[in-house]
């Protein structure tokens, strides 16, 4: 889903850059330089903090330490603070941020999950939340790193629908990631209980009851929000066609197809989960479905990162009148060559 935005960035065209130049003042250029400067440092900064927190989490499996918990929380908190400042700084300098580019979309998704990690770690210090959640956070930051920072060309009308579209997709992705981790934990915990082994040291997982609840709830949320994201995308596409700001995305565009496939899968998974909820093997089914959903989401993101699309691309011949009347809110800053 995050790939929606990525497609735009990766196919940034000369025409789109030309639109940006119309309103590219010297102060904006200075700010843009600052953005580059801050992002170049801070992304590494908070990614490194999360990576150190992940190493601390992994060391639970090897040895005990009285200070590790505090160090882990300190590094994660430092990373989250840097992450927040970075996003806030971009939001104050890029009017359409935080969902104005693929780069920001991925970073915001990572920020939500990192915040969740910190909260869960403080609330459940003996549960190795980060061992499973931080790789996803780092993966999203990695995806942000290779995706475009150029904002989507927008008008006030499309900005609202773009924000709705991006927010629903973000919620769906976060729900799928959380559900997959809960599902994986369910399978690990159930495996331990079936083997009749005591809880391993440093790896105390939540109960099957709670994990089953989280898994089924997140699958439902993911299905609803993904469907809402897809529908709002259709509306956004219609508005874009009307305003002529962006290229109309055809129904057979890869982004539309993969989004439709993802929504269809999530709806099926949610329905199956609900229909098996009163069966003894229902939680196991839900756990597997949540893991497969995460696989489908990952494939969708990778497709978005490396595939070509017309999604979010400016029109080949911009309709000057429409653009001027709409006053595009954000100027593209980081045109990238066509892949």
């Amino acid at each position: 889903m995050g790939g929606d935005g990525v497609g735009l960035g990766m196919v940034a065209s000369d025409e789109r850059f030309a639109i940006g130049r119309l309103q590219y003042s010297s102060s904006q250029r200075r700010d843009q330089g600052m953005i580059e400067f801050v992002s170049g440092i801070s992304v590494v900064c908070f990614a490194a903090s999360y990576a150190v927190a992940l190493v601390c989490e992994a060391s639970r499996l090897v040895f005990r330490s009285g200070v590790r918990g505090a160090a882990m929380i300190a590094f994660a908190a430092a990373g989250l603070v840097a992450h927040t400042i970075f996003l806030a700084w971009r939001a104050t300098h890029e009017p359409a941020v935080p969902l104005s580019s693929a780069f920001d979309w991925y970073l915001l998704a990572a920020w939500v999950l990192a915040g969740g990690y910190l909260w869960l770690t403080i609330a459940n210090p003996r549960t190795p939340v980060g061992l499973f959640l931080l790789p996803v956070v780092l993966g999203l930051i990695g995806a942000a790193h290779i995706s475009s920072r150029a904002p989507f060309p927008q008008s006030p009308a499309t900005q609202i629908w773009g924000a709705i579209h991006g927010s629903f997709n973000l919620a769906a992705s976060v729900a799928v990631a959380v559900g997959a981790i809960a599902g994986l934990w369910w399978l690990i915990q159930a495996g331990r209980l079936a083997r009749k082994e005591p809880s391993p040291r440093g790896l105390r997982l939540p109960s099957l009851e709670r994990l089953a609840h989280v898994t089924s709830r997140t699958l439902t949320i993911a299905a609803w929000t993904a469907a809402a994201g897809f529908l709002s995308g259709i509306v956004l596409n219609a508005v874009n066609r009307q305003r002529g700001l962006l290229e109309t995305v055809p129904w057979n565009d890869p982004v539309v197809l993969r989004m439709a496939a993802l929504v269809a899968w999530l709806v099926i998974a949610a329905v199956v989960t609900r229909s098996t909820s009163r069966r003894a093997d229902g939680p196991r089914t839900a756990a597997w479905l949540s893991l497969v959903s995460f696989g489908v989401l990952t494939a969708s993101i990778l497709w978005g990162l490396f595939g070509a699309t017309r999604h979010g691309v400016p029109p080949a011949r911009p309709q000057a009148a429409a653009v001027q009347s709409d006053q595009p809110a954000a100027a593209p800053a980081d045109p990238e060559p066509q892949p």
Partner: protein
Amino acid sequence: MTLAFVGGTHRTVPLALRERLAFSAEQAAEALIRFRERFPGRECVLLSTCNRVEFYAAGERAAVPPPPDQLVSFLAECRGIDVTLLSSVLAGERDEAAVRHLFSVASGLDSMVLGEPQIVAQVKQAWAIAQDNNTSGPLTGEMFQAALRTAKRVATETALGRERLSIPSVAVADFASGVFERFDDKRVLLIGAGKMAAETLRYLRGAGARDVVVVNRTAGRADELAARLGARSGRFEDLVAELSAADLVVSTTGATTPIVSSELFERVESGRGGRPLVVLDLAVPRDFAPAIGERPGVWLYSVDDLAAACDANRKSRQREMPAAFSIIDEETERFMGDLHHRSTAPVIERLRAGWSETGDAELDRLFRRLPALDVAARAEIRQAFDRYAAKLLHPPLVSLRSESRAGAPHGLLDALKRLFDLKD
């Protein structure tokens, strides 16, 4: 000798003798006061639990504690036991060995259940009784404070006390809690009236279980047990319905064949609506057919399964022993270093006093010769003298502290006394 202890534990003292030797809190207070009256100036603490009785004594210089054999006689006299009987089962230690022993005891390394945490509270209580009766002092105070600090370090820096060792606690904490998040909305079914049922229920109650039903072949026995456990009784004939309604089953009947077969469980399953079921089959022979545990949503644990988990936990605790002993060695060394350094205090005091006296005399002579010096100048000169004396004293003090780590620095103290003509 500064510190001494005598004592016996479950390993050395037979239960019958341990019962006679045990002190209640009041008896312990009386014994401590009596000791203080007989050996004035000495400190003492008495630790008496169901598994051990230990008497710690401390004193310095003219008031060194009595040797262990006198302590044994004292304990024998307090409890009215033949001293020869006690001498054969009580052991004594002095100084560093006594400190190391107390640190091991407080950390649970000497307990019957390795790493059990209750001993910390018992050590605290023993020290509190001594404080209340004014028989504790600076030596025992520091020793017991250090013991509690060591116990805390062992508890936080090792996993010695983490894993559970009893079958009921493992059943609830490692398995039932792995399936259920909470127990206050779960139905617990006790089948039979075996000994472990009540103990398991105690842990379940601790975890929040409220709704408990007891069934037994003998209805009267079920009623009696239910009344005792604060539960309600059910009819054995309704076992299928009770199993259908239950979330967690603890079964401890004395039946010679399984009371719940696979066929019977199929009837139970149809009424459960897919809810998970935890079965703690603590009966021998087993009450539930083993095949039931292979059904989805059923988590069946027999006594052997739980005993194996307890054994794994016990081995895990054993693996923590070297780390725990390393902490105890470190803390003992630190405590003994401080204790030895403490013995140098009188010599250092005399040395300081002598230098100060000489310095003051010299300053008075100087100020008499230089009457024009104002107050500020005199203060400056006095400060310079003090700094000079402190700097000269610093190297010998550092050497004393360093030497104290290996034992009381008698050689250095004697040298200082002779070099600076320090009188006792």
